[in-house]
């Protein structure tokens, strides 16, 4: 009997398929271990989708991860077809479908573009670390050649095809001081979102944290400039940190609950709380079941209990409700163990919070219309003739 996780059927369920361990890049900081070919069999894919739908979720997010998922466009096509056909057989109300893919952006032929194009609801995360000198210092192919130029060309093709993409830049001690130019480069490519993702496994020191803070100040200045020009761009995690203040903490559904509403499947059919915990899929420590045996509720409870140790450690911290210390995959990245974190996380998280608050403080103080509309008003319909929909700019005429 397959245990029925995730249990919150009113919530979205996120199924992540670890398509293959293979990748056409050899990024210096990749945490997924060795690159080897182990494509997920069709049967594993189908059973995973069935498991995700077992509890009739209101929404199903199917995420493709790896390895490089676009090495296998045929697998992606087959999965989309299976998901969409299976959902059609379900009674009303059928779950809403969304797709997510993390890709290195080097493979975007016409077949791939057709897969990702609207009207399918695809959220595409493309890894791009910044300008060529930054990106190509880490993200190279198996011959050591940089991948920047090819990715930028593919992003142009995606824009032409109407495919929205989000850019993800890995931030390391050596690249952190250059975050200003990183953000400017990425913003110029017209993404739907830019995410700065710290490499928690990197050797962060006090000096490199100082570099991170300087880099984030520069990135914040670029973001401020965009707001002042009326351009609203989502720059994560600064946006998220602002929201944690606006909302006085992280909303409960957003906190990591270890497979509460998401799970990942390796090509072997083994189940994990999160795709970032799969690695080479050789270690049993973080396995929470298999497609054959179902979810191992006892093991999941043990892991949850282990993860929650951080809640006690962080209880006295003033930044606790604005920090991602609850996130299990960060624990594993930082220390290799759930429930264990270290000072690097405290410093990185505080750096993001301080940078975000500085941006928000400045833009609120000057009543920046784009910022105010985005963070304080966007969910309200302006009243006809109302002057209440935005702060007045200095020099604006007095309201009638």
């Amino acid at each position, binding site marked *: 009997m397959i245990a029925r996780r995730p249990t919150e059927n009113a919530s979205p369920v996120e199924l992540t398929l670890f398509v293959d361990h293979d990748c056409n890049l050899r990024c210096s900081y990749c945490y*997924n271990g060795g690159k080897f070919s182990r494509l997920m069999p069709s049967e594993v894919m189908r059973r995973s989708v069935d498991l995700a739908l077992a509890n009739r979720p209101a929404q199903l997010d199917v995420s493709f991860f790896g390895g490089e998922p676009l090495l296998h466009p045929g697998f992606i096509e087959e999965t989309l077809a299976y998901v969409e056909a299976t959902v059609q057989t379900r009674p009303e109300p059928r779950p809403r479908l969304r797709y997510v893919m993390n890709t290195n952006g080097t493979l975007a032929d016409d077949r791939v573009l057709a897969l990702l194009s609207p009207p399918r609801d695809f959220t595409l995360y493309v890894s791009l670390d910044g300008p060529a000198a930054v990106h190509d210092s880490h993200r190279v192919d198996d011959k050591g050649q940089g991948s920047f130029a090819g990715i930028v060309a593919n992003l142009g093709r995606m824009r032409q095809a109407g495919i929205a993409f989000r850019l993800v830049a890995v931030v390391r001690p050596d690249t952190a001081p250059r975050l200003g130019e990183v953000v400017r480069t990425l913003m110029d490519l017209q993404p739907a979102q830019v995410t700065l993702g710290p490499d928690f496994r990197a*050797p962060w020191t006090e000096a490199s944290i100082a570099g991170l803070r300087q880099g984030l100040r520069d990135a914040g200045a670029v973001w401020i400039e965009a707001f002042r020009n009326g351009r609203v761009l989502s720059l994560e995690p600064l946006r998220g940190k602002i929201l944690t203040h606006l909302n006085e903490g992280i909303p409960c*559904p957003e906190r990591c609950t270890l497979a509460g509403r998401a799970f990942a499947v390796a090509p072997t059919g083994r189940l994990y709380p999160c795709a970032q915990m799969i690695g080479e899929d050789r270690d049993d420590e973080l396995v929470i079941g298999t497609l054959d045996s179902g979810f191992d509720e006892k093991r999941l409870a043990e892991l949850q209990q282990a993860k929650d140790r951080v809640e006690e450690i962080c209880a006295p911290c003033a930044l606790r409700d604005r920090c991602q210390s609850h996130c299990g995959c960060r624990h594993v990245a930082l220390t290799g163990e759930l429930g264990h974190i270290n000072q690097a996380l405290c410093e990185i998280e505080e750096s993001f919070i301080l940078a975000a608050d500085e941006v928000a*403080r400045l833009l609120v103080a000057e009543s920046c219309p784009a910022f105010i509309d985005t963070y*304080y008003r966007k969910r309200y319909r302006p009243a006809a003739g109302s002057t209440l929909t935005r702060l007045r700019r200095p020099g604006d005429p007095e309201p009638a």
Partner: protein
Amino acid sequence: MDKRLSANAPQPRSRITFPGYPTLAAAGLCLCLSSGCTPKEAGSPPVPFDGPPAFLVPDIGVPDAGPPPETAPDASDADPAPIELAPPDPAGIP
């Protein structure tokens, strides 16, 4: 020597600083519509802001006139997309 921070225990912060901009609740715009939460202030009207943002002054009350029809949230306002606070940790993938 610049020691790796990964060797150190976490360091909970004890100082509390005011970030310098108001929460939604402080601005009279509490919109917490996450599942499981009660949207106590979901119908509150926009707060008039003129000139310097008065809400930065501590302990100032916000108008509570009730939402006139033309300022009530529309259907899409009542069910906003979930706030994404935890983007994927992308280091090294794919």
